[in-house]
């Protein structure tokens, strides 16, 4: 390598590359989002369309659907790069693998997490959530979905070398998602009841900080194991 590139620029290059790749496959981009909307739609049909009940379970339903949608899209973080060998090149690059992983996770969140954020208020209205809860819903999703992508990256990195990692990823990742689900759902519930939600939001923020600082290293270590 004749030209030295610093890690920050490598990070941005990786981010731009992944976003471009996602943009070239626009059709697949919509799938997790559609899945999210459809799962939420199933609840009024399957449980009851009664407004009071929907308002009570709405926050939890939207969050569980977000969890499942995030999980569905996880495979795309590393799969295609693993299949065409790009992942091995990343392992060989002089930049810290954890930074490259972080860039890939950031790209994944931008293309899968952010659309959920945008769609969530609409689903909140469909689930008859009170107006005060909608802000809390968006705030918890904004803090929580990056955590989902970060933790999910560890699970995918561990299973990327396997032929059928799909079900296994959910088994590995879902237990780790539970704290996010608990704090987020309780924040939305509290907001609907008119109680301040700063406590839960701080916790989600703390989880995000923890995941941001540790998950890239765990995912990088997992990738090295998977590709060895």
């Amino acid at each position, binding site marked *: 390598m004749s030209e030295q590139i610093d890690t920050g620029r490598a990070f941005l290059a990786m981010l731009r590359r992944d976003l471009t790749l996602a943009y070239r496959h626009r059709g697949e981009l919509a799938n997790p989002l559609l899945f999210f909307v459809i799962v939420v739609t199933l609840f009024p049909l399957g449980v009851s369309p009664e407004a009071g009940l929907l308002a009570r379970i709405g926050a939890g339903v939207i969050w569980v659907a977000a969890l499942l949608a995030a999980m569905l899209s996880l495979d795309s973080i590393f799969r295609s790069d693993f299949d065409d060998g790009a992942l091995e090149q990343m392992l060989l690059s002089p930049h810290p693998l954890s930074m490259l992983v972080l860039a890939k996770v950031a790209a994944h969140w931008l293309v899968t997490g952010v659309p959920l954020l945008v769609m969530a208020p609409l689903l909140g209205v469909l689930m008859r959530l009170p107006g005060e809860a909608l802000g809390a819903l968006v705030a918890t999703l904004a803090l929580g979905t990056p955590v989902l992508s970060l933790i999910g990256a*560890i699970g995918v990195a561990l299973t990327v070398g396997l032929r059928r990692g799909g079900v296994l990823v959910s088994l*590995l990742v879902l237990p780790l998602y539970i704290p996010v689900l608990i704090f987020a759902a309780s924040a939305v519930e509290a907001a609907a009841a008119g109680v301040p939600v700063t406590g839960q939001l701080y916790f989600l923020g703390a989880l995000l900080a923890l995941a941001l600082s540790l998950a890239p290293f*765990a995912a990088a270590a997992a990738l090295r194991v998977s590709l060895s």
Partner: protein
Amino acid sequence: MFEPLHRLASPPHFYRWSGRLAPWLGAASGVLMLIGLYGGLVLAPPDYQQGDSYRIIFIHVPAAWMSLFVYMVMAVSAGIGIVWRVKLAEVFAVSSAPLGASFTFLALATGALWGKPMWGAWWVWDARLTSELILLFLYLGYMALYAAIEDRRIAARAAGILALVGVVNIPIIHYSVEWWNTLHQGPTVTKLDTPSIHPSMLWPLLVMALAFKLFYAAAVLLRARTEVLERERNAGWVSEMLGGTR
């Protein structure tokens, strides 16, 4: 200083000393278990609130303690396996997982049996129960990942990373579900001042806890022996020791 440790950790040596140690541990565990059960089921008085049904505590609480203890053992040895590539540490982590899962399941099952007469329900979404259930999921995830990867050493390292991630998550899960919802009775033994449990109930409980620990030690040695044999089945010392020819 580390020389004897290294020697103990070499597979043939481990196979030899564990074979001598395991029966003793198992016997000690059996004796203690009989003493503890006699003390708990016969000598200890009925509880003033819960009558005789509290007696399941002598199984339930040691199993719950073991479920956490085994996870820590598993995670620490997985960490040692990842960092220093000690084969035996990997083997211990892998052998611990099914035992830990069994203890967790035992704690959940006896808790359900206890919960039915006390709370009127087999299962409630209480903090302790929920975090114990998630602990079981973590164990099962670890075992599933280990089983899914063909190469034993790679599998042990990948599963080890998962175990370490789980360690970070366990306190988070514990406190998140605690703040979310709790019904379980408070701790009665592990308080810094005097325990609020009567000594006549405490000593069988502690004896049982020790018996469970020794049982785990014996069982994990036996599992580890099998695992070592399987991994080293092509090594010279195995055929030499077992007299087999390949």
